[in-house]
């Protein structure tokens, strides 16, 4: 049997769940974390936009409408760099399984929808390690809309109001999320996403993900 090698060369594993808001990413991450933990592996979760240094600046700037498309991209890139270098890479080096709620694919989708050149955005993130697995939760916009309206409600940036597609929240959300989905669709094959129908039940989705993760674990890469 050929020994499985991680794509990034670190000892640990990098596993990403991508998808638009409300697609169920955090629920799945928690489930995955528990099942990996149960097998005595070291596991941590890191979420998008949570660096101690920059996350607050982004929230504050959004609240006060201070961002243009370029500063929006760059601030998220700075947040990512800080988390990558202070959390993700050290954990990978010491052999942890790092579960990520969103990765640079999120930036690619959102920034391009905001009018940035895709090559410019790719350059911002080109130093980041390639994940071992990327799960993508595929959700139709009408289902997403219902989920979000029923839980957190529509927010300004998630609805892409800053891009100026429409001053109507519902309409703007629909256009914005559709454009994000288009970008994700383009990335599916380029980045080998394992695309999962997000309308399936929580258990079904979990078992698909677990199966893929188990294959890697069974290869003995973390022994």
């Amino acid at each position, binding site marked *: 049997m050929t020994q499985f090698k991680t794509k990034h060369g670190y000892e640990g594993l990098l596993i990403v769940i991508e998808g638009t808001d409300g697609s169920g990413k955090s629920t799945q991450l928690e489930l995955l974390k528990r099942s990996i933990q149960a097998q005595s592996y070291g596991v941590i979760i890191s979420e998008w936009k949570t660096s101690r240094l*920059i996350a607050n600046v982004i929230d504050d700037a959004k609240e006060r409408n201070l961002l243009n498309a370029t500063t929006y991209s760059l601030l998220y890139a700075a947040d990512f760099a800080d988390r990558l270098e202070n959390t993700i890479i050290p954990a990978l080096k010491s052999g942890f399984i790092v579960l990520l709620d969103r990765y640079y694919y999120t930036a690619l989708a959102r920034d391009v929808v905001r009018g940035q050149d895709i090559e410019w955005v790719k350059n911002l993130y080109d130093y980041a390690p390639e994940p071992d697995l990327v799960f993508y939760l595929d959700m139709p916009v009408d289902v997403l809309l219902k989920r979000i309206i029923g839980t957190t409600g529509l927010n300004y940036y998630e609805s892409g109001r800053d891009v100026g597609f429409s001053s109507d929240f519902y309409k703007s959300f629909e256009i914005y999320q559709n454009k994000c989905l288009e970008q994700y669709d383009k990335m599916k094959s380029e980045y080998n996403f394992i695309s999962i129908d997000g309308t399936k039940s929580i258990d079904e989705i979990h078992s698909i993900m677990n199966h893929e993760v188990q294959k890697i674990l069974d290869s003995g890469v973390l022994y």
Partner: protein
Amino acid sequence: MSKLTEKHNYKGTLVCVEGIDGSGKSTQLTLLRDWLKSIGQDVIFTEWNSSELICQTTKLAKKKNMLSPRTFSLLHAVDFADRLKQVIDPALKAGFIVLADRYAYTAFARDVARGVEPQWVRNVYNFAIKPDLAIYFDINPKDSMERICANRAPKFYEAGMDLKLSNDPYESYMIFQGRVINEYQKMVDEFGLVKLDAMDSIHSKQVRIREMLKSVLNNKGVNI
């Protein structure tokens, strides 16, 4: 394609000064600004790491020594992008003379001296507008250190202490700023920076700068 290598079509004029700390660039820019104002020109001044959006965060992070070279680079890019879109671009459209104390070249010099890839940081800043006049004040690390450290030790990032080149801040400063200067030297040809000797007198440098600016403005049909 980078805007930094293409001539801009704005009505206004963009002038920037570059060089390591203690090279006298801020003094020269202040003299230029006051003179331009006194002869009734529309002029604004913008400074590196001064945007309302981010400069406090960067300063705080620097104080706590918590920045990796990449994060350091991106935070300064946020500052620059914010000032470019909010200050520099509108002022150039309105026909102002914009004086920038440091510009994208500062990032190219410092970030590369910290080990960030030259092409990466140039790509990050590819939205920057090409200045009509970019002046580089050349000084050696020793003279610079004598000027800025007359009554204080070099600061952590200014001395490149994050790179662990030496435990002695003075020695680290010399090595790190030497690297920064080396990057500036390369950019003289790459971006057409005009090199002035920082050790020349304040007066003689100011005379040269005013001459150069007059000639730039002349080419745009403005006589001062």
